[in-house]
């Protein structure tokens, strides 16, 4: 097999695996939350059932819906699938990995969000625009924090390419970087905010006044909604993978080592489930913040990320 073919095969397998795994991760987080709240929970496979149901339904479109409204879910899914293939999850050195560095990755995630917000405003209902505005408020605060989180590992490894960062952190000799501890806390806060989890948004709410993400997708139905839900689950998985790659990268397969990949896959799934359980615990322990407290929450994340860089400058080398 030629190296190019081999690389492409690896990339395709990795991406498809992530796409198929994403609803399971979401189901696991929901199941953990149910257990922690003394409920039985819908089971791990519920997101797959929801997706099947939605794909079989006929989408209903508003009269004024434009082309943008119909295309936006696919654009969003496309952006997040590309992000999923850029983040090194099972093995480093995937061929798509040099396509974008961490800064472009942040931009890619932002692009997905912008299209969803535009689509929410497209129909012109009050809830859609309100949700879009709130989402952009959160996004505008979370994005600089996410960028700053990326800068500390980038400084440590001397590169903004994700593959190089992970290679450097996972395969070099083990060293404690206190700066990374700060960055990890900041990243956790950004993860919760960006994925519409509890301190910022409640993923299971349908109370109009408090919802952010749900308000944006209120007008969607049928396969469009299914695509959005899938992209949402994939986004959570991608964020978890970013966290794993930056802060606990051990066990990732080095580039071109096919024999280690099954083990690396198992390790990744274990880490994803541990991360999902941790998110469920955090969500159960905290209460939803008022929307005007969100800037404070994300401001703290940003400052922690800045602090991570400062600590790295003081203690590094």
């Amino acid at each position, binding site marked *: 097999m030629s190296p190019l073919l081999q690389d492409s095969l690896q990339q395709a397998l990795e991406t498809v695996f992530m796409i198929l795994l994403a609803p399971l991760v979401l189901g696991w987080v929901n199941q953990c939350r149910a257990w922690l709240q003394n409920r039985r929970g819908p089971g791990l496979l519920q997101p797959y059932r929801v997706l099947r149901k939605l794909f079989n339904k006929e989408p209903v479109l508003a009269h004024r819906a434009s082309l943008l409204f119909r295309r936006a879910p696919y654009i969003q899914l496309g952006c997040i699938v590309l992000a999923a293939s850029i983040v090194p999850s099972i093995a480093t050195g995937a061929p798509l990995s040099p396509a974008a560095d961490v800064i472009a990755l942040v931009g890619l995630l932002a692009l997905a969000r912008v299209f969803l917000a535009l689509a929410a405003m497209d129909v012109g209902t009050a809830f859609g625009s309100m949700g879009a505005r709130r989402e952009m408020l959160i996004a505008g605060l979370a994005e600089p924090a996410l960028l700053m989180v990326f800068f500390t590992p980038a400084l440590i490894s001397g590169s903004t390419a994700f593959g190089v960062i992970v290679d450097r952190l996972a395969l070099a000799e083990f060293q404690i970087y206190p700066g990374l501890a700060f960055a990890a806390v900041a990243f956790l806060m950004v993860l919760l905010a960006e994925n519409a989890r509890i301190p910022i948004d409640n993923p299971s709410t349908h109370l109009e006044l408090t919802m952010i993400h749900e308000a944006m997708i209120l007008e969607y139905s049928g396969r469009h909604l299914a695509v959005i839900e899938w992209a949402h689950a994939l986004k959570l998985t991608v964020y978890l993978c970013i966290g794993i790659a930056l802060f606990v990268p051990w066990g990732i397969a080095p580039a071109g080592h096919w024999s280690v990949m099954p083990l690396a896959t198992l390790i990744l799934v274990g880490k994803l489930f541990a991360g999902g359980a941790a998110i469920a615990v955090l969500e159960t322990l905290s209460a939803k913040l008022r929307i005007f407290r969100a800037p404070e929450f994300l401001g703290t994340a940003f400052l922690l990320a800045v602090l991570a860089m400062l600590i790295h400058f*003081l203690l590094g080398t």
Partner: protein
Amino acid sequence: MPVTQQLINLCASLLLLIAFAMLTQRRLLSLINLFAMQGAVLAANTAVVAFSTGQEHLYWSAGLTIALKVIAMPLILHRLIDRLELRTDQETLINIPSTLLLGIGLVVFAFNLALPISQLAGTITRSSLGIAMASVLLSFLMLITRRKAVPQVIGFLSMENGLFLAATSATYGMPMVVELGIALDVLVGTFIFGIFFFQIRETFDSLDIHHLEKLKER
């Protein structure tokens, strides 16, 4: 970099992280728990320094830190706020994002100040000096931005944590006699603060130290 030095750096950074968390914390109970955590991190740091440098007396001060700052004082403070029935959120003088921005400024200032000193030093703890100074300044900031008496006292106690870290990182701790004296002073101080709380509340019906300003007008 040897592993012990990495551990020391990690502990010092965690101490700073907790100092920041205290700056943002509105709830009194969480503030006390954070203070206890800061004490535990400080004790761990002291123990690692003691292990890596062979300074026996530092084990004693680590033990003292655990006994006083992790167990005794948080217990006293918990009992105090139980008896004062303080469960509500505490207000700050300036809002929390601005406080945090000020805090970052202070950290930059402290790091800049400590960098030349730590470059000249040869001790294993040299890089935590900047962090110690930063956490002293952060506690000081907390002290002046809080309106109520109890958070101020916690700020004061956490400032002592920062000073202790500074002493450990600059000179491997103070002599045993001084350390014992300070530990006793802080403990007695906490008791006296407790009495003050009751006195302040009896006189003004609240713990807002804003009322104390009236004294100077007569």
